[in-house]
């Protein structure tokens, strides 16, 4: 430990201000979750009100923060968690990107979940952990250093597990076990990496451009090893192959959970962590110099292709969607790993885009299963005749996943691909194209089945819920599908996710 690295605490370009907002925004859903858990199963109406108002309040708070950040203020709150190591909650522009995604999607998912779980047992528990899950996500978004990130990252692991095993079935418990094996194993390595990093360089806050500097060649292997350890911790949640196997089995969870897992919470937290690791801890320059970016890019590329191939082989709708997530989330890591302004924008903006697209698909998968009993792909035939709006939402999201304009996914792919070319890594284009083809291969048949194949005589299962329940299920899907289009069509306008991502990258790569 020769102190080979020092933190490059240069004066930040933006003004950091002590502010309670980052804590408040984290606490809102925590308190809501605790209140819901304490209220018990019977207080359904109060629970609904609490759920929804907390979600709305949180969204409003995040927007407030976004306005502050857009005005050049970085609200921050810190206190000593472990002696010498601070818990830092700080809302920089990258935080806002992720936080606004979580807050917005939490709102729609809450609406959906209330409708979806109408007849499930243990709803108080479900919504309690659901809220804590979002608390953790918000904490991850606001985390101002790796330790804080780790704390909320683990909280997320813990809060998600009850959601995964919610039904208590044998399959659910098995999935929960797999989930824990991976996440806890990964977090053990993460923790070791963290300790090592702090031992080597002292406590480090996230700084645009990275807080670490390489002063000594002796530290190269250490720094590489630390990166690998932490990246494995992140990669488990981000479902980087071969650390992804928990994700498809976690599909047994109720649909809102899958939606949340895949779009906002767990998987996205891992990807967001990779972004922080590369951009804010190591900095893309140092990551590149240490050869870490290339390694990450290769891992992400492999994941993209592998996930897509496996998705193609699935016959179960949710499984196919799960493997698609494996593939799609790695776009984020890929963008970060390529580096350069364009690809970084692509990676960051995909954080949002993948979220709205994938949540739409899971909403729809849940609707198909609940209303018609459809869970397998062959059962999708003619489904659009019964559920045209859901089928339309699903189709829009699927086309976006393929990366076709004018959907959101195209914008991501555009920036990733052109960014890679601009950085002289044209091979990435081949990966993207392969992924596009595979995505088309496993999504287009679904669309074709839904819209053009004849419907069966009668549907196998399904309930006849009230009109309000159906509206509660379909409206969120339509809303996010609308976002999928809007984020693509209006990508060039101010305050679009793309615009925000570009603003972030300006901070990172002036």
């Amino acid at each position, binding site marked *: 430990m020769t102190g080979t690295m020092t933190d490059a605490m240069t004066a930040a370009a933006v003004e950091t201000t002590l502010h309670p907002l980052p804590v408040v925004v984290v606490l809102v859903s925590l308190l809501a979750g605790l209140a819901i858990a304490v209220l018990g199963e019977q207080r359904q109406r109060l629970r609904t009100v609490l759920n929804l108002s907390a979600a709305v309040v949180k969204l409003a708070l995040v927007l407030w923060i976004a306005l502050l950040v857009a005005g050049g203020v970085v609200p921050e709150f810190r206190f000593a968690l472990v002696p010498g190591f601070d818990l830092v909650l700080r809302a920089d522009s990258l935080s806002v990107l992720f936080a606004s995604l979580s807050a917005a999607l939490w709102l729609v998912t809450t609406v959906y979940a209330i409708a979806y779980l109408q007849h499930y047992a243990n709803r108080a528990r479900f919504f309690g952990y659901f809220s804590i899950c979002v608390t953790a996500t918000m904490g991850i978004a606001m985390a101002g250093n790796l330790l804080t990130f780790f704390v909320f990252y683990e909280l997320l692991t813990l809060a998600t597990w009850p959601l995964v095993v919610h039904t208590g079935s044998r399959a659910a418990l098995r999935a929960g076990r*797999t989930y824990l*094996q*991976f996440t806890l*194993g990964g977090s053990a*390595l993460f923790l*070791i990496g963290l300790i090592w990093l702090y031992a080597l360089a002292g406590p480090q806050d996230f700084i645009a451009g990275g807080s670490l500097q390489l002063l000594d060649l*002796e530290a190269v*292997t*250490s720094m*590489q*090893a630390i990166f*690998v*350890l932490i990246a*494995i911790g992140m990669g488990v949640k981000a479902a980087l192959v*071969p650390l992804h*196997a928990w994700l*498809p*089995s976690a599909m047994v969870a109720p649909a809102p959970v899958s939606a949340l897992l895949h779009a906002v919470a767990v998987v996205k937290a891992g990807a967001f962590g990779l972004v922080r690791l590369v951009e804010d801890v190591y900095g893309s320059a140092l990551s590149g110099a240490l050869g870490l970016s290339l390694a990450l890019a290769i891992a992400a590329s492999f994941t993209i292709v592998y996930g897509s*191939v*496996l998705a193609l*082989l699935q016959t179960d709708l949710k499984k196919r969607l799960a493997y698609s997530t494996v593939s799609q989330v790695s776009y984020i890591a890929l963008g970060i790993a390529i580096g350069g302004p*364009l690809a970084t924008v692509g990676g960051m903006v995909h954080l949002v885009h993948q979220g709205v697209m994938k949540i739409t698909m899971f909403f729809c998968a849940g609707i198909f299963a609940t209303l018609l009993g459809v869970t397998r792909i062959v059962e999708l035939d003619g489904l659009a005749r019964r559920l*045209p709006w859901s089928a339309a939402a699903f189709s829009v999201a699927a086309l976006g996943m393929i*990366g*076709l*304009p*004018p959907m959101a996914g195209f*914008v991501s*792919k*555009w920036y990733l*691909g*052109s*960014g*890679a*070319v*601009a950085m002289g890594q*044209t091979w990435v*284009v*081949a990966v*993207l*194209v392969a992924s*596009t*083809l595979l995505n*088309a*291969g*496993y999504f*287009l*048949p679904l669309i*074709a089945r839904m*819209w*053009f*194949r004849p419907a069966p005589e009668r549907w196998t299962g399904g309930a006849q819920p009230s009109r309000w329940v159906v509206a509660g299920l379909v409206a969120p899907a339509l809303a996010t599908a609308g976002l999928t289009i809007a984020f*693509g*069509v*209006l*990508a*060039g*306008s*101010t305050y679009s996710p*793309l615009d925000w991502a570009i603003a972030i990258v300006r901070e990172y790569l002036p």
Partner: protein
Amino acid sequence: MSIAVALLLPLLGALLSPFGGRAGVWGRRLAPIAPLALLLPLATGEQVRWSWALLGLDLGVDPWVAPFVLLTALAWGLAAWFALDTVTGDTRRFWLGWSLSLWGMALVLLAQTLVAFYLGYVVVSLAAYMIIIHARSDAAWRAGRVYLLLAFAGEAAIVSGVLILAGHYGNVQLALLATPAYAVGLEEARWLLIGGFAVKLGIVPLHVWLPLAHPIAPVPASAILSGVIVKAGLLGWLKLAPPQSAETLAGAPTLLALGLLTAFTGVLLGLTQSKLKTVLAYSTISQMGLVLVGFAALSLDPGDDRWLAALGLLALHHGLTKGSLFLACGCSPGSSRLRMLLLALPALSLAAAPLATGFLAKAWLKRAVDAGIGGGQLWPFTYTLVSLTSAATALLMWRVWVLAMRERDAGQPLHPAWALLTLAALSVPWLWAASSGSLIAPTLSNVWVALWPLLLAVAVVLLGRAWGRPGVRFPEGDIVVPLERSAAHFGAPSLPRAPSVPHTAPARAALARALAGSLARSLAGAEGLLRELTMVGLLLLLVGVLVWLLLWLG
């Protein structure tokens, strides 16, 4: 404003069509009007820059695109009228696909930035699927499947090219791509794009989807598919891989050879067909070969704007003429003399008979090739070969005539749209040439040059009558059939198949399933292994040991 209207009308039509009741009716009624709205931006010359939209859409009609706009407005509008009266079945989805295709085509026409073009191209490619599978028959499913596979193969190349362009220049102004400064280091992008768009044009050997898809669609849909939508590929070449960006394109002679190959192959394969619409589809392939010849000629001499205009003229002529011929298929062309005339004139025009619009287009093409020969970049006999394509086309048109004469259902009305489109095919290219200053006055020499191939064709026909036609029969889609069979062995992606799959013998199907199954199983096995705790433990251990080693060594 005019551009907004031109884009919003088809979009509105597309959005309304899927609904039942009054909304759907209104959506359909928009269909014949919407294409005409494209004439507005042509007339006003408006340019817009919507930077808020997507990654920045710049839209407007470039002067050289004008014939394409004209073609789209006329052919699509009249075909829509025809379709309103004839298309039955699942009309909601048909009209959705129809209007969406038009919207995409409009974007392709108006696009002045990379993203705008790509958006339009993707939309038109996907929406066309909806009108191809309209019949929902086994053949339609198969055609749709093959179409999608090839469309996405092309898409792969195109998106690669587009991303490479974007990597160098961002969402570039397309006009800038046609200036030499932008060509540096983009050879691979150029070839990817040329290859990708060649799928849409049906250049051999990427043509296989075309004889399946164009004939299976309803008559008016075939008309726009063959008449207009294939031109999106040409626009792709000219807008995204413009020859003007380089002195000369290194591979231009090869392209020209490929064009000629396509022209002759299309005819030869078409002659073996026994369905009228299929023959016409092969004719399209053949004609697109000529387009490629024109493109290659332009590549040899990119500085000369006349060759660009010639391509526009060729497209305008072919689009209107082929549209008219396809509409004829829905009007029993053999049932009256008037109808025979309405069929014969465009057919002759397509074979570049003197004084027809095809003569004008072919004359320009020959001039362009001649220029290449004069520059020493082409063998002199290419000129003769280009002339010979007229003979080949004439033969194919004879086949069309023979098949058309079998259709004598007098109960089928003569739709006015057909008549109008035929008139347009015969006159509009002349008018356009006159207004744009690219008239070629008929002289003795150029008439002779146009005439001898026709006479040759007549001679061949007479000889064929005497000796009998060779009884060769190629299946529709020719080489796609063996390809499909071999694909089945590898468990091709499960695009929606028709309920019964007649192509593969049971044993082969079983083998294919077994192969696909074993792949799936082994991957699933790997997945299971990865999920096991022991495996996770081993992985973690491995990492741990590695870290330890690093520590020890570091």
